[in-house]
């Protein structure tokens, strides 16, 4: 049984190979739109929470049209979430100025900025994950290269992703080997860890060397090629322009507050 049965690394490839209107869009167009999305989201002030909400429409639309299961993206998001939590966790203690209120509770600036960090993290990371899931890493790298990213970086990115399989595979085999002989002890001595990590490096390097031999034997000369590279059509342009207009509108106008005022105003 291979490691693929344990973890979901291969799932991203499966999703990337599916066929949907979102998958058929040009990789460059999707990449540029996602970069525009990330830049817009990051450009808000540090205490902004409400105005960020409309931006969830972008990743959710991509998931819905691309038929990417949201549960999968959310699980990946949770794996990466400790980084965002670590960045923002001290804000509520450091910044205690009252910035707003929720019912009768005062909300400090620290909590506002913490919430803002978590929301921005969720938005940007889910958009990036969805981009990979509805494009496929090879098309994405080829698209980046055609956009002018130096080839060496595009190939590095592709190989980095490919070798993930290699290192996880070797690590799982070694762990199994250790567990078989550790007689139920859960913890390892420090010296054992050191030796394991050293071996993991050497084994992964050997394995990577053999994969490279196989690639070179089949004519690999430093460039990943893709069959039938996509061309930019009118619907690609419509996709990019449409979203750009939405991002600009959501950046300039605080849509949730405007809707809130409209409703409250209507009641009053």
């Amino acid at each position, binding site marked *: 049984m291979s490691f693929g049965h344990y973890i979901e690394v291969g799932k991203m490839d499966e999703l990337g190979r599916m066929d949907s209107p979102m998958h058929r869009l040009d990789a460059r167009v999707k990449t540029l739109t996602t970069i525009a999305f990330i830049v817009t989201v990051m450009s808000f002030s540090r205490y902004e929470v409400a105005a960020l909400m409309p931006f969830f429409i972008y990743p959710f639309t991509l998931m819905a049209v691309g038929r990417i299961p949201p549960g999968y993206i959310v699980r990946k998001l949770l794996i990466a979430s400790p980084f965002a939590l670590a960045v923002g966790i001290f804000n509520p203690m450091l910044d205690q100025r009252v910035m707003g209120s929720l019912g009768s509770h005062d909300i400090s600036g620290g909590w506002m900025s913490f919430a803002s960090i978590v929301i921005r993290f969720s938005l940007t990371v889910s958009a990036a994950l969805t981009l990979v899931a509805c494009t496929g890493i090879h098309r994405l790298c080829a698209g980046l290269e055609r956009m002018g990213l130096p080839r060496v970086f595009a190939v590095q990115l592709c190989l980095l992703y490919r070798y993930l399989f290699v290192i996880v595979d070797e690590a799982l085999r070694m762990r199994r080997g250790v567990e078989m002989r550790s007689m139920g002890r859960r913890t390892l001595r420090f010296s054992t860890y050191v030796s394991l990590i050293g071996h993991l490096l050497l084994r992964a390097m050997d394995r990577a060397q053999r994969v490279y*031999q196989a690639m070179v034997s089949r004519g690999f000369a430093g460039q990943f090629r893709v069959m039938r590279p996509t061309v930019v059509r009118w619907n690609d342009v419509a996709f990019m322009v449409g979203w750009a207009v939405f991002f600009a509108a959501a950046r300039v106008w605080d849509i949730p507050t405007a809707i809130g005022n409209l409703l409250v105003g209507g009641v009053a």
Partner: protein
Amino acid sequence: MSHPMIEARNLCFVYPDGTRALQSVSFRIGPGESVGIIGCNGAGKSTLLLHLNGYLTPTGGEMRLSEVPITRQTVAMARRAVGLVFQDSDDQLFMATVSEDVAFGPLNLGLTDDEIERRVKAALDRVGVAHLRDRPPHKLSGGEKRSVAIATVLAMEPDILVMDEPSSNLDPRARRRLIELLRSFEHTRIIATHDLEMVVEVCSRVIVLDGGTVVADGPTREILNDEVLMIAHGLERPHILRHLHPH
């Protein structure tokens, strides 16, 4: 398919750590020949195979393909002509789907999309795994992986097929299918293996390596029946020959 000759002339190879893996190895393998490279572990089989398509450059002597020495200038030609199937199929399959993996070599040859598609289909059909084309390689069984690994090399349309332990880790039925497949090829075949029973069925000639040198080179049955020679070099006389030539 052209029919090149492959030749080693006093081939020597020393690894950077000082291990002398090959010492003055010489042989000529003609068009369409099927040759088994046998020898105990560490005899130099895998090192020799990596010279056949120019992955390793000899530290002494030379490899020649159709009378042309394999050098830095001619290595692209050698890799097109000599297809290498690796011992561990997992090392050979690294793309997201079977068809992408088979297309990897032809794409690097700079062929047209239609020609690539034709070759992918032909190669998968040839090894009988056309139904696997959209599956991810890492989820296939060992036998399926081996077939796909062979298809990735066939799609390059090489003249010479070089295989490292093609029958290892296969169940009896998958091994039998592999043997039939290898027998059906018209390519020059060079097969490094410990599976001596398979050598008897597939190869008409064997080269015995020991300590990095050629200790015997000749017709399969003659050499594998030489019990003294076989045992002296860490091998044994295959059972299949005992049955065919009872004492």
